[in-house]
């Protein structure tokens, strides 16, 4: 397994696990009173960002330390092509998510009653639709890299 593939695996697994934890915690926050929710979401978001930064930094440092030659060499042409292709997959998902988020904002603007009637009770929903889109697009990008490395290209 190449250095870049291992790096993609680290990012994929840490993103799925840490943001999976974030979203599970987020659903539980919905039971809190409205005034406390924003503060709790902000605290959870900060905790998640710090956690993923530390996990990624530690694991990537360990990977670079154990594969010093490969880390210094950087990406070759196949690595760059795989990264480009995977970026395309991720970008497509991000665009769909942003369009969905915009659609949600427009619909709620004209039909405010939908917010209270909706079964999708997630705090700060507009922000989280965009955040979900970003995280899912990142997961698709890392998964795309892993699949392309497994296939050869």
């Amino acid at each position: 397994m190449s250095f870049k593939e291992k790096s993609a695996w680290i990012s994929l697994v840490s993103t799925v696990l840490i943001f999976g934890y974030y979203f599970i915690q987020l659903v539980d926050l919905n039971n809190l009173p409205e005034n406390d929710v924003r503060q709790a979401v902000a605290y959870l978001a900060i905790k998640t960002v710090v956690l993923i930064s530390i996990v990624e930094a530690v694991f990537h440092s360990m990977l670079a330390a154990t594969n010093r030659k490969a880390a210094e060499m950087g990406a070759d042409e196949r690595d760059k092509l795989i990264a480009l292709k995977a970026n395309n997959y991720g970008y497509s998902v991000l665009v769909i998510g942003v369009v969905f988020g915009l659609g949600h904002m427009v619909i709620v603007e004209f039909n405010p009653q939908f917010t209270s009637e909706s079964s999708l009770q997630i705090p700060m929903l507009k922000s989280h639709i965009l955040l979900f889109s970003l995280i899912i697009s990142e997961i698709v990008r890392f998964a795309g890299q892993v699949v392309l490395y497994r296939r050869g290209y």
Partner: protein
Amino acid sequence: MSDMSIKNRVREHRFFSDEMTQQQLADLVGVTRQTIMAIEKGKYSPSLEVAFKIARVFGKPLDQVFEYVPLD
């Protein structure tokens, strides 16, 4: 026009170059060992620059290492 594919004889040339390893070839060309492996298996077609570098390592013209042939 029939479907064409790029075939290569990198593995064969490595063998006849004192059984050069994939890692040695990768170091000489400036790519990873996994990229050499993908090229040998025909899963990845290298850029012209890398193809010329591989041919130069073996001291052969490009068309003796890479061929553009109809699909089997």
